[in-house]
């Protein structure tokens, strides 16, 4: 959980707006660190989290979560976290076994034209089981509103699912989780973003998905690489208005410093070096984070429109 990002979005584990659909998108960059941020935020907020991990294994999220201060294995055992390990489940579909094990969530791999209904069923059962779980175990814990996290949605397009089916899926999730259950949805959608090439409907999938999701969501966080490319020295950059970006203007340092969490993770896996170490590395920015407010049916005006921050990771 990054405290600077929390202060920008005015969220804390204790208070955050419910019923939000947050879209994370990136262009030629990697926005997955935001997924880790939101995962640790909502786990700390004691929400019931349903996580669709379609591109990485559980151990990956668990290792990073440990460094951010949450234990995914514990959350899974207590029933707070429902995790779909997409990679593992897909193998049983792609290489047919004799015994049918696992959930049917990845069944769309068999025939993508069918759509994502089984995946949605998984989400619905994962998000709504909080009511039942309270009664099952003795001293069953009461969790907060359900949260759905998807990492990431655009891989479904690579696997043959149409953009329309993916948009239907996100709409159904939003209707169930945000409206019915007053929870939050966070989805990551990645794209190449090469708009200058002639598109004969080649990229219509991911761009169409992104446009559709942008319309559905209430908040967009967009990460993109620096226009001039990789740059070693950080310069704080704040620009108003989406258009002109003045490079190399040092007003103040707006960087996501991971130094804010100084305590070492409690059990360090052997061979790993702590992400937060005491010696300083030169900070390098790896992208631009833009906050775009799409719909204003919420009253909040969190910050001036279209401000951008330079991201860096100080080790």
């Amino acid at each position, binding site marked *: 959980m990054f405290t600077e990002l929390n202060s920008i979005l005015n969220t804390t584990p204790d208070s955050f707006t419910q019923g939000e659909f947050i879209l994370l998108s990136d262009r030629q960059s990697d926005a997955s660190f935001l997924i880790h941020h939101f995962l640790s935020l909502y786990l700390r907020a004691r929400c019931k989290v349903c996580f669709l991990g379609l591109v990485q294994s559980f151990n990956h999220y668990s290792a990073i979560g440990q460094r951010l201060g949450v234990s995914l294995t514990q959350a899974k055992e207590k029933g707070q976290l429902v995790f779909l390990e997409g*990679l593992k489940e897909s193998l049983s579909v*792609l290489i047919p076994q004799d015994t049918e094990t696992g959930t049917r969530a990845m069944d769309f791999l068999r025939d993508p034209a069918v759509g994502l209904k089984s995946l949605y069923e998984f989400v619905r059962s994962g998000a709504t089981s909080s009511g039942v779980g309270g009664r099952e175990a003795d001293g069953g814990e009461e969790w907060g509103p359900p949260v759905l996290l998807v990492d990431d949605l655009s891989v479904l397009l690579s696997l043959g699912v149409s953009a329309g089916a993916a948009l239907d899926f996100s709409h159904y999730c939003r209707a169930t989780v945000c409206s019915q259950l007053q929870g939050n949805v966070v989805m990551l959608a990645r794209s190449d973003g090469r708009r200058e090439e002639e598109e004969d409907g080649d990229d219509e999938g991911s761009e169409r998905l992104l446009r559709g999701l942008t319309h559905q969501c209430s908040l967009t966080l967009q990460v993109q690489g620096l226009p001039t490319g990789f740059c070693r020295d950080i310069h704080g950059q704040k620009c108003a208005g989406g258009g002109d970006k003045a490079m190399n203007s040092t007003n103040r340092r707006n960087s996501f410093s991971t130094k804010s969490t100084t305590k070492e993770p409690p059990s360090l896996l052997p061979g790993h*070096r702590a992400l937060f170490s005491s010696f300083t590395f030169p900070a390098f920015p790896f992208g631009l984070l833009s906050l775009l407010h799409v719909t204003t049916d919420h009253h909040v005006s969190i910050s001036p429109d279209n401000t951008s921050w330079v991201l860096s990771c100080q080790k």
Partner: protein
Amino acid sequence: MAAPVSTVGKPSAERLPLNTTSFQKKTRTKLISIPGTRPSVQNGQLLVSTGVTSLDYLLGGGLAVGTVLLVEEDRYDSYSRMILKYFLAEGVVCRHELFVASAQDNPDDILQELPAPILDDVAIHKPVEQPRLSCEPQDSLDAMKIAWRYQNLPKVQSALASSSRFGHYYDVSKTMEPEIRQAAKCHRFYLTEHPTQSPPTHSTMLESYSALLKSLQEVINSEGFDVAAPMSKSRNILRIGLPSLGSALWGDDLSCHDNPRNGHALATFFYGLRAMLRSSLAVAVVTVPSHLIQDRALMGNITRLCDNAIALESFKGSERETNPLYKDYHGLLHVRQVPHLNCLASKLPDHKDLAFKLKRKQFTIERFEDGL
């Protein structure tokens, strides 16, 4: 009666010969130590060498076990094939197991063309010979008087010692000697020899890709590369080399047509490959003729499904070959993607403007400086 002192601190109940020490350092780490691997300094991942030391440096120390390296071929598939051969040769030297699948060349032919390693000594590893164990009684004549701490180390420096290094160098003008090559266990998948199966595929993947995935899984499960397998015997790494995947010989029309019928077959295969590698002690290097694939978005999808991705662009046959600016190099190398595994971000070397040159004893990759 007091317990005898010698039994205190012994981890096992066995009694070893009296004239050797019975102290065994109790390993606290759960990291398995496999020859030819080392942990990454950034995030503790287990890394293997690609066989090209400069490529190892670019990828952050080496290839992480459980990941895929995608190499976009150059036009004549000469340098990408060379990188694949380096990768397999490194596997032979480190005594890893190999898996080669090909639709065009016979895997045996590929294996016969591996470059010869440059080892410090000429000793060839013979599988039957066991290294001398330290608990064998030493002769009094051989007893060292001054360097007595080194007495128990094996005296013969075999090829085992050189394989404990990470990353080796190869002489491309010579091929690997058959004795060294045959010491490594190799699994083959040759598409033309593979029996075509008539049952319908269960997904959008092509039959050929399904068969390859199934064959890979059989090898991983039967040879014990699965991470979940019991740790009874010593673990090893499986190196998977897949040259020219996605070419027309695999039955894929991705590289032939602008609007391929099975546009997602290759991407689904990469997804399945990623799933399989994440749960096994295996590494894969796949070369794809991306210059034949018209759909750039599809290549972008495939790149994102692989962890590491580089693209080679050779100067051969182009007007750049005679350009004095590029005379020191054979081509350009573009790094499309590097992974952030188990960590949020990693400190990686600068990836812009890289050029490569294949020398007899080294494949160098360096920053392209236009000398003015």
